[in-house]
């Protein structure tokens, strides 16, 4: 399994595009939207906007790792590596873990950098540091778990990209990352509770301002962990078919 993790990291570190998608683009968006939404506001009025956008865009952009994961999986499938690895003693379970863990490293670093950026440039509060770190871990676990499932279940890279857009952008919209939930119709507010984005965003926001109660913290964590575990289970279930698609 370590061999797979190492190779996967090596490939991704060589890939310049990765830095653009995971860091440059979200930072550009954050800066752009904060300047748009806070223009003409005084500092007290800007504060809640910034406090929503910094974690909101972090949560939104971590989802795009799903594209990278799908691309990597489908490429392995097409160039015969999946079949070849299946001929070695490595179990499918460890193979999937090996394809999962490296993206956890990447996303965790991504979250840390994006939040640090918010801290350094916009001076967002970081009140409950411990909660924030744990939430960052769990958000990472969740999004890469779902990414693994997507990568195993889709048949083509294009399909993976399309579904990632739907999950990332649709979830961001419904989950209240773009617009305060209070401004949305009641029905949407209810639906938003089914999106992982909603929980991630709430958790970060409250932990930053220091208002995250322990009960809520556990609730949010378990919802996000649930999504991640669901992803891994789906990936395990989908693996035999994934292998079949390479070899028949």
């Amino acid at each position: 399994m370590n061999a797979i993790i190492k190779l996967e990291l090596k490939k991704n570190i060589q890939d310049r595009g990765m830095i653009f998608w995971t860091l440059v683009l979200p930072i550009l968006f954050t800066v752009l939207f904060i300047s748009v939404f806070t223009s003409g506001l005084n500092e007290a009025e800007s504060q809640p906007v910034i406090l929503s956008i910094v974690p909101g865009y972090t949560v939104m952009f971590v989802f795009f790792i799903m594209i990278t994961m799908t691309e990597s999986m489908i490429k392995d499938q097409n160039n015969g590596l999946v079949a070849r690895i299946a001929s070695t003693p490595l179990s499918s379970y460890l193979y999937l873990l090996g394809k999962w863990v490296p993206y956890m490293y990447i996303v965790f670093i991504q979250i840390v950098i994006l939040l640090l950026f918010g801290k350094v440039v916009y001076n967002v509060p970081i009140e409950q540091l411990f909660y924030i770190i744990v939430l960052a871990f769990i958000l990472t676990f969740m999004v890469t778990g779902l990414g693994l499932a997507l990568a195993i279940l889709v048949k083509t890279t294009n399909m993976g990209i399309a579904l990632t857009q739907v999950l990332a952008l649709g979830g961001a919209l419904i989950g209240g990352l773009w617009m305060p939930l209070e401004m949305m119709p009641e029905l949407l507010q209810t639906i938003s509770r089914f999106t992982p984005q909603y929980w991630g965003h709430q958790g970060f926001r409250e932990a930053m301002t220091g208002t995250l109660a322990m009960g809520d913290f556990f609730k949010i964590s378990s919802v996000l962990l649930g999504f991640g575990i669901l992803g891994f289970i789906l990936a395990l279930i989908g693996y035999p078919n994934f292998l079949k698609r390479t070899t028949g």
Partner: protein
Amino acid sequence: MEVLKVDQITKKYEKKTALANISLEIPAGVCFGLVGPNGAGKSTLLKIIASVIRNFQGKIRLTNPRMKIGYVPQEIALEETVTAQDNLVFFGKLYGLSGKALTLRIEEVLEEIGLTERAKDKVTTFSGGMKRRLNIGCALLHQPDLIIMDEPTVGIDPQSRRYIFQMIERLKQKGATIIYASHYMEEIERICDEAAFLDHGKVVENGRISMILEKHGKPSIFVSGNDCMPSGLESFGMLQEKAESYLLITRDPLQAMEYIVEYCKRSGSHPERLELAKPRLEDIFFSLTGSQLRE
């Protein structure tokens, strides 16, 4: 003693039957050739043995269930964006090697496949033949007892091909068993001890190559230059026509030859070649299946 028994294996892809109730025994320490035209089912059988394909009917019985198997796929299955060394480390670890043992083994394998100098280069910069060699090398790291090679010489120059043959020879000397799929009968005749002929998912003939040659290798006449072909040759035996030549497999070669010569003299045609021959394995394959190995 066989290392492996293929026991009544059937494999269907959706509607297509790729293997139809195949049984084979692979003896220990031989190079076993699997020959057949495109689509015969060679790769399917090898993938089943290498446990890449897992849903099929029938059984693969390994004499030693813990036997180490190395599988060289038909396509080049490497991570090409990293170096040869990286690929070898990767597969070595998947096969359970690590540390000093892995480093040493990688050096040996690099030597074996003649890529020591290029170890630190990215695979994308390799020629087709070099990729092929690395493709083989990645299956040898754990010193497998059984090596499964699916058309390892496709698309490479004669020099690299000879190189690969020498490798196989050395592996055999070390006691490994090799299953070698190809649609080049010359390769099978040259490096294999036993062979199975596969056509449309069925085993048409199998056994020691010398035995197959003896059993089916009836005397025959080879004639090139097609205008020297009298009608009624079929009555002498079995006729195989090719583009500019034909082969007549017959019990009575002298009589048949006389008949052909008579005809040529009468019609004033001059064959380029007219000779007594023993059919080669490829001719035997054709006479058994009616299929050409290659179009």
